[in-house]
């Protein structure tokens, strides 16, 4: 079974996301802050006539305070009927991978461990596969 992945980069790390979860990629603008929300929530933004919740991908991984700058790319995903924009630094490519993701070993940090479903190999480089659903509800962020 072949699966398409979107390869993106945030905080200096490349990772892959299954494309079937992704609606579109847009540029961040007018992000309205949401005080007291979970720490990975950077704010709200309008996408056409919908409100999307903007998530700082790195904040969800390592628990630092969320911040999204104008012009960052947002990967729009739909989880449980809510639209989220996952802020990443760069979008690289879409690639195809035939094999199912391999489980991560214990060497990964807990932040990555929680949001990933495994690891794939793209053009000879290993890459973490990120599960958007885990990213937007990451308990790591709440604990931090």
């Amino acid at each position, binding site marked *: 079974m072949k699966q398409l992945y979107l390869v993106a980069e945030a905080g200096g790390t490349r990772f892959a996301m299954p494309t079937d979860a992704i609606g579109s990629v847009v540029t961040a603008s007018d992000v*309205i802050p*949401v005080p007291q929300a979970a720490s990975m929530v950077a704010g709200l933004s309008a996408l056409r006539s919908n409100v999307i919740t903007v998530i700082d991908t790195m904040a969800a991984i390592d628990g630092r305070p969320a911040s999204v700058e104008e012009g960052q790319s947002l990967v729009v995903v739909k989880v449980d009927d809510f639209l989220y924009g996952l802020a990443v630094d760069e979008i690289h490519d879409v690639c195809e991978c035939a094999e199912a993701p391999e489980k991560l070993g214990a060497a990964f940090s807990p932040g990555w461990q929680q949001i990933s479903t495994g690891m794939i190999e793209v053009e000879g480089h290993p890459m973490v596969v990120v599960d958007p659903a885990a990213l937007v509800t990451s308990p790591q962020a709440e604990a931090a």
Partner: protein
Amino acid sequence: MEDLLAEFIAETRETLGTISGEIVAWEANPEDRARLDSVFRFVHTVKGSCGFLDLTHLQRVSHEAENALSDLRDGKREPTPGLVSAILAIIDRIGEMADALERGEEIDETIDEPLIAALNTSDAGDAMLPIINHKTTEHRNPARSIRVPLELLDRLMGGVSDLVLSRNELSRQIRRMNADDQVEVAFDRMSACVAEMRDAITWARMQRIESLFAALPRLVRDLSAELGKSVTLEIDGSDVELDREMIEMLRDPLTHIVRNALDHGIEDPLERQKNGKPCDGVLRISARQSGNQIQIRIADDGRGIDQRKLGDRAVENGNLTADVVKAMGDKELLDLVFQPGLSTTDTVSTVSGRGVGMDVVRSNVERIGGTIEIESVVGEGTKLSLLVPLTLTIIPALIFGVRNNRYAIPRSNIEEIVSLDKGRSRIEQIGGTEIAMIRDDRIPVVRLGSMLGGEASPSDATEYLEDRHLVIVRSSRRERFAIMVSAVFDHEELVVKPAAPGIMSAGIYAGTALPDNGMPLLLLDTAGLASAAGLTLLLSNVQRDDRQTSEEITAAPDALIFGDRDGCCRAIRMALVERIIDADVSQIAERAGALRLVWNNETVPVVTCAPLPESGTVRLLRLSDGNDVIAYAIGSGAADVGPLPEIFEPAVRPGRVAGVAVVAGEPVELLDAHYLFSEFSGGAGRQSNGLQPAKPRCLVVGGDDLWRHELLAPLIELAGYDVTFDETEDAALVIDASDAEYVAGEGQDNVMRLSANPSPGKDKFYRYDRTAIVDALHARLKAKG
């Protein structure tokens, strides 16, 4: 019942449509178990529904078919072609009978006997097939309704909401580009279509409240049996329609109230007899629509609620002190029912438990933007009135600014907005928290700026500059507190959607919305805010505040004092002012013979005393008499709220100005709102003929409160009469301002009837026909001497 029948017919026809394929397949291969099962299920369902709907003949026919099919399933009989045909004939017959039912025709029962006989004898072979008259398909009525999955409806509703939002976005862009007229005309047409669609889809989601009431007879029957009581249930207004989501939200509160009424309200038969009441208790449930709200009333004729006992309970529980309870009126005491942990029953029961309930009911009702009120007379019964909006999705809200961000609060939660600039309130620091003093009320203050902004401490001096308004809100748990905000922007109807879990986890948000400016907006949850701010309010405070504010309102009506466009200082009664609008001059133009403002899909007549500028913005007061709306253009300076001066020198001639008074050394002209509405709100207005000095008393009854207090009364007073609203007072003349006959009977000399209809019926007056009203007043009073 008719609805259920229609549903049965629709369902039967629909299933017949889908299983017709199965039937053919089964006929081809009678051994096919799965097909046999689905045919059996169909016949079984029909039989069950018939029993329920009391269609005995159809039930018998389907029962026979079910028996035969059941035997086939159990292998007791063989699916011979004869039997299969007989069963198929029965199924066709069921379809035929459903059609006959829909057309209201008599069912010819004689046809069916040979069919049933064929079922039971056809084992022998295929020789005995009865001849069936196949005329069914030719004149089957086309279905007048279709069944649609709820998700599809929800999706449609969501789509239409999105459409409204995109239209708003487009409207902004068009205004910014100063597009030409043709674009605007096209856009207006699209706007109308969108509005039309929104209405249609809202209507499609409407469900009769019957579906909410349907479960009640059974509930009442079971409960009264369990409790050993005898209760008659009377339901009225089942045909009122309500958004289906709303119906779901009301299910729990209603069940709760009914349980309470049966358990605690209605006495057992022995006790009732002892008190001289009929053995059977009566529970009346009624629904009716008024405007865009639905009123549901639940009344029992039980023992009622003892207010004093409630008060005592509150003291026992430590919720209130004895002094506070002593000072409370009956109505306030009764309202204690909605406090957590209060009940007057002495025993715990399995039906409605004890002590929990009404507080939950109230918060559930308020969560959907409704209100609940209770009336009770000891020994006579209790009446609960619920008032809920028709739909959930669109919430009128106030948008305000906190530092650089904007938030919204549902308008139903807001009591009052007080500006700190005007010196009408001051903030005091008590024990590390802040209390606002507003007209002798002490209200805890929540500083949204520091709560949501993070770093700055409450004592930060710069903050006092930023936070300039207090929005006094009342949460669903009855806490009353003030939110300090930097700016108050606008009222807007918001399409509110739930926010993502990561946002809801903060506990202070109720949802998100996209207002007209296209920037996402967070709707605050007042109850969440109160608990997040750690507000614990003494009930006694809340209760006392209530009474004071209501006295305040009746004591002195407020007036809005402003500089008019011609430079004069004028005032208008505050209650008439809905809001202040800053509109672009391009939005105001001469349309249909009058100056009109186009504002949020409606046109509002504009009144101005001096020509409007060529460009720029104009400040307008949006005035409402409860029915009609007009906009009054004012100068761009500040507008102040102050008490309405008590003494007015009446104007020489009736006109836009009713009189003049002196406020703070300056003359202020009071606008004659009655004149403005009669001249400009679309009704046919005429000039009045002068006035006559006389001081007889005139009683005004019926009609809408705002209108008779703020518009009718000033007119009558101005003509030199005394006005009273107290029906117990003697009056020379009664004015019935209700369109219905509030004062019963015809041909009474001293009753004058007003109507909102510009062409009123016999013996009635159009309520803005000033001349006729004033003339009639004189004529009638003169006749009386």
